[in-house]
């Protein structure tokens, strides 16, 4: 049984060790990777600087417990809650330590500040598995297995705010299988086919001159990933969830370049490298000012081809183009820019949330133009679609899609006859497709 933990830290107490230990466990629970060495360091540091000055204590703990800049915002919030809020302090002790829970915790204890931390806590902590069983999260009862199952197939567009939050957590846990290609480097391997002379001679030196051949084999490395995501009005309900998706991919892959486009193109690769997804999304929202506006797919692709493609498309990149393809005023150059994009990348995947409808067929002019220049055309409207995609990304290059080939052939035929189709017919095709989404 834990004794009363001091709620103020203005005077040093023998309980400091225990508090820091609790604090470190809290940090672990919200996802920071901390070993016990860090904890001992932190305790030592806190004793060295003393606890009289809260600022000094803060910086002492920061210097011991933060190893990556991205962890800082989460740490700051945890520090604020843990060391400055006595009520939370008690609650967190209840949560983290396996013990009989004290009764009488009210929901109103939870400050607005707490949401992110509580969300983080609701994630199963990835360090000690036994802790996950001990922790009982009393302020978050959603997110059960049945819930998750139901959410799998639900369209993001139809989800409530709470469901979206759960979907975001599920996305964070995605385990993408990324496409790889063979690099021109090799590593030691007993089954390799290249002779490793240096290793053989190093061995010979130790063995007194006996040369036994060693081998090397070629290694593979992940292909760079380029993501172009539409954030215009018609994609409004998807753009936030797509950011989470991009973040999940960025975290699992060393080389992701991501761009958002509505009326103009914005590079968000750096922002997406924040470890904390909320931080990442927030910094993107500061950066981008064309949320939910019009779409200028053609112009955005032109900008991308002109300014970025040669910088990020090297080394056999895979491109994910996330858009519904609905451009109210498609200009004639759309096909040219799509073709350029297609030629610059190893594989071009078009992820279209509209594809959720069984009866989908490329009708609008812009969709017909674009579909001719893609290698794959896949849905991205639900968790299931996302999971399927990430699981099969690695195999994409060798697969072919019969349905897509059919559409492409139809689109090609249609584009030959396009000059004969009056403008109002294209407009109505657009309206029809738009109506489908509503």
């Amino acid at each position: 049984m834990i004794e009363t933990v001091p709620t103020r830290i203005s005077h040093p107490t023998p309980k400091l060790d225990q508090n820091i230990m609790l604090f470190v466990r809290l940090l672990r629970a919200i996802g920071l990777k901390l070993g016990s060495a860090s904890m001992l360091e932190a305790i030592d540091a806190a004793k060295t600087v003393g606890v009289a000055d809260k600022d000094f204590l803060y910086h002492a703990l920061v210097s011991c417990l933060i190893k990556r800049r991205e962890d800082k915002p989460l740490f700051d919030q945890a520090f604020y809650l843990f060391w400055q809020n006595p009520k939370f302090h008690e609650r967190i002790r209840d949560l983290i330590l396996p013990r009989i829970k004290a009764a009488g915790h009210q929901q109103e204890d939870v400050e607005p500040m707490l949401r992110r931390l509580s969300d983080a806590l609701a994630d199963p902590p990835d360090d000690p598995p036994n802790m996950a069983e001990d922790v009982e999260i009393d302020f978050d009862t959603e997110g059960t297995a049945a819930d998750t199952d139901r959410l799998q197939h639900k369209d993001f567009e139809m989800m409530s705010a709470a469901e979206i939050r759960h979907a975001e957590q599920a996305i964070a846990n995605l385990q993408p299988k990324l496409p790889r290609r063979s690099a021109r480097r090799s590593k030691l391997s007993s089954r390799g086919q290249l002779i490793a002379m240096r290793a053989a001679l190093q061995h010979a030196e130790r063995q007194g001159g006996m040369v036994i051949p060693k081998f090397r084999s070629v290694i593979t490395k992940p292909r760079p990933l380029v993501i172009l995501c539409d954030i215009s009005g018609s994609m409004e309900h998807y753009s936030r969830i797509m950011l989470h998706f991009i973040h999940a991919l960025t975290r699992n892959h060393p080389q992701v370049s991501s761009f958002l486009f509505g009326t103009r193109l914005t590079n968000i690769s750096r922002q997406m490298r924040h470890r904390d997804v909320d931080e990442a999304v927030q910094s993107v929202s500061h950066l981008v000012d064309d949320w939910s506006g019009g779409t200028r797919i053609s112009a955005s692709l032109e900008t991308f081809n002109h300014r970025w493609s040669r910088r990020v498309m090297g080394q056999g990149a895979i491109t994910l183009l996330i858009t519904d393809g609905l451009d109210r005023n498609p200009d004639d150059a759309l096909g040219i820019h799509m073709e350029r994009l297609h030629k610059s990348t190893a594989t071009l995947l078009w992820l279209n949330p509209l594809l959720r409808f069984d009866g989908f067929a490329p009708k609008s002019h812009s969709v017909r133009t674009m579909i001719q220049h893609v290698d794959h055309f896949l849905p991205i409207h639900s968790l299931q679609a996302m999971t399927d995609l990430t699981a099969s990304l690695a195999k994409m290059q060798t697969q072919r899609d019969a349905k897509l080939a059919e559409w492409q052939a139809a689109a090609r035929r249609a584009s030959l006859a396009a000059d004969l189709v009056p403008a109002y017919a294209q407009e109505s095709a657009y309206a029809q497709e738009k109506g489908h989404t509503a």
Partner: protein
Amino acid sequence: MLKKGFVKPMSAFDTVEAVQQELGSAGYIASDGLAVSLFLALAKQRALFLEGEAGVGKTEIAKMLARVLDRDLIRLQCYEGLDINQAAYEWNYARQLVDIQAQRQSATNEKPDADNLFREDFLIERPLLRALRANPRGAPILLIDEIDRADEAFEAYLLELLSDWQISIPELGTIAAATPPIVIITSNRTREIHDALKRRCFYHWVDYPSREVEREILALKAPEAGAVLQAQVVDFVQTLRGQQLFKSPGVAETIDWAQALVELNCVALDPQTVDSTMGVLLKYQDDISRIQGSEAARILSEVQAALVQGELSRA
């Protein structure tokens, strides 16, 4: 920071103007920004990282600098898969094997002296290691060309070299530079170079030259082309660069074009010649088909009109 034990080389240039002047007399027109970065890199003994589109004269800087300073130029052309064996050093395996055999035959009863298998005289020096060796002509210029073509692992390997001017060889120990080489790294930006590497360098983005600078360059590189042709060529190319092409022509292309036109005995541009020589300037079929024909004729007439206008206002 200058490390202890290094001999500070005689300051190559006293001022930024001296850099520009010396390079200019050797036939390289350096912009102010480039001259400042170059001056700083030489004064502070740090690497110079040059990034820019293909054909803006990044590699040329290193060559000119070697000529002006009268130093050796050691060039390491990067490519995918470049590793230590090709970049820094390699062991001479054949000699090592022969050595084992020889030792075995000469002293059959004794254990061969295997400690000596990794001796310094079995080391084959590759560009990076060679750049660290003392050189009678002074610290050499090390050109690491198109680093964006090498893998990320190679960048990491460069970090030790660029910050401490040394290379660690596990079997032998650390080899430090007597005098740090002058390092110039170039990149065509086909991928982003890691910040850790950039942090150890002075960075300069080599841009397309201005109209005036490009004319000076042409006057130096293609003097056979008359003043009229030079002016037309430069204005035409400058206009092309504003056309959102997939690959805008670089300075190298401008020079090539001017020289090609001289070969064709052309004294002034005309639409037919422009069309037939477009392949010298533009290297993508999409770009060529966009510009060739009416667009080229339009640009040409604009250029000619502007030049006549300029003549009139000067007169």
